[in-house]
């Protein structure tokens, strides 16, 4: 959507809702709750002859269309950075050195962590491989049953991801297996 810059600036300037129409946006609603967006509250009441409108607050010019337009523009103004974006950060030479040092230190920490994790997983993998090799030497039957893998792998419902702080009930120590044999998981 290519619009002339000046026009966009004009329409996206934040509006204060000072010019709102008398009629409600919802039209023929019998009773309207006071709107937080408009300065005035209007309650439409349907009578035999027509509709009566009780209003409180400032009277405004224009119809319902302008009100809607204003509301849309108000919301759109939030998306635009106009008059909301702060200044660019301009770092001095020393400041930029500090920033770069911090960044490099962080990258180093991240790299070390990644490497540690990789090594730990590698050791775990070779442990599994060694165990499987020994099992194969020991018993072919047990080995083949150990190699059976569920496809696709199924995780239990109780699987939980760690959070920053613990839940209110940290551990369910009084858990009992369900009575139904079908729902039971033995291992």
């Amino acid at each position: 959507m290519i619009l002339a810059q000046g026009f966009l600036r004009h329409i996206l300037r934040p509006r204060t809702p000072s010019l709102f129409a008398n009629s409600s946006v919802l039209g023929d609603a019998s009773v309207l709750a006071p709107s937080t967006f408009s300065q005035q509250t209007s309650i439409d009441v349907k009578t035999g002859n027509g509709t009566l409108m009780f209003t409180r607050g400032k009277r405004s010019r224009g119809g319902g269309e302008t009100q809607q337009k204003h509301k849309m523009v108000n919301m759109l103004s939030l998306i635009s950075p106009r008059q909301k974006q702060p200044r660019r950060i301009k770092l001095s030479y020393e400041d930029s050195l500090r920033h770069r040092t911090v960044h490099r230190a962080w990258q180093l920490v991240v790299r070390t962590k990644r490497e540690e994790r990789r090594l730990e997983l590698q050791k775990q993998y070779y442990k599994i491989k060694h165990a499987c090799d020994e099992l194969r030497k020991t018993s072919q039957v047990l080995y083949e049953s150990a190699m059976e893998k569920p496809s696709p792998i199924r995780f239990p419902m109780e699987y939980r991801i760690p959070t920053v702080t613990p839940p209110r009930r940290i551990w369910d120590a009084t858990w009992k297996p369900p009575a139904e044999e079908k729902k039971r998981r033995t291992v």
Partner: protein
Amino acid sequence: MALRHVPRPLRSQDIRLVGPLARPTCRQGHRSMGTATATAETESSVLPSTAVSVGDSPASVAFKIMSGLILCRQPIVTPELTPFERAYYNYQSELQKRLMWTFPRWFYYPEGTLAERQFSAVQPVVDGKDRAEFEKPDIVFNRDRRSKQEVVLPERDVERETEESAKIYAKIEPRSRITEADTKDDFRSLERKLDRTLYLLVKKDRRENAWKFPAAEVLDGETLTGTAARLLLETGGPNMNTWLVSNTPAAYHRYDYKPEDNEKYEGAKIFYLKSRIFAGTFIPQKGSGIVDYAWLTKDEIQHYVHRGYWASMANALSRQ
């Protein structure tokens, strides 16, 4: 799981010694090596036997095959941050606050409303005089564009509060990461060390090498998984919600018996399966031979267990 028929033990006529050149060729694409025959197995110096049959088999080495369990409780909270990490995250959030767009107060507190009046009354005065700079202050919508914005939310209007709005304003009190079990050093509790993995260690009535991961002998017709399930019930009771991670063993430990201790077997081979506990308690059952138990982290296990065992098991465990 279908119980498999245990093959008959190897007899002397089944064994054909083959030379080193006659290795079964490992072709690419063959994922399972299930077609290995008895001949291939004789390449190792030890002749294995799946079932113990004292009568049939020759005077070969027999090992007791056991299935063990590495039962662990995963961390409940995220890992503890180091001082550098904490400082870095703080630095990044300050940068973000500095670069954040001005709060659109005209949208949330429209002009002319009571809420807007209350909001404006509480905001700090922004005149740009707190920064000693040569440039003239650049203030747009009550925000100095050269620094981060401080938005102060007004206090609750107790007069106009309803039950629902009271719920919204109710303060969220986060629970502490350090629990009672931590302060008391209760090693049998599963609420201890929430940021670490806890492993179950059991103590048998023995003078030395008492602390171990639970293990049981694989009986005739059983699989490793079947033994592990039985082991769990026999040692800890049924009140545990566990999940076996895989049928594949995660660790292997072998120890030799002293010749005077056991005549049937020369030693034992234990294949450990990894399992996770999600709820419940481990209650040592009578007749299991378990004197004591503890839920320990990896570094704590090192002090409980003897060196050879630690060397076998350490790499299978997780540090965090």
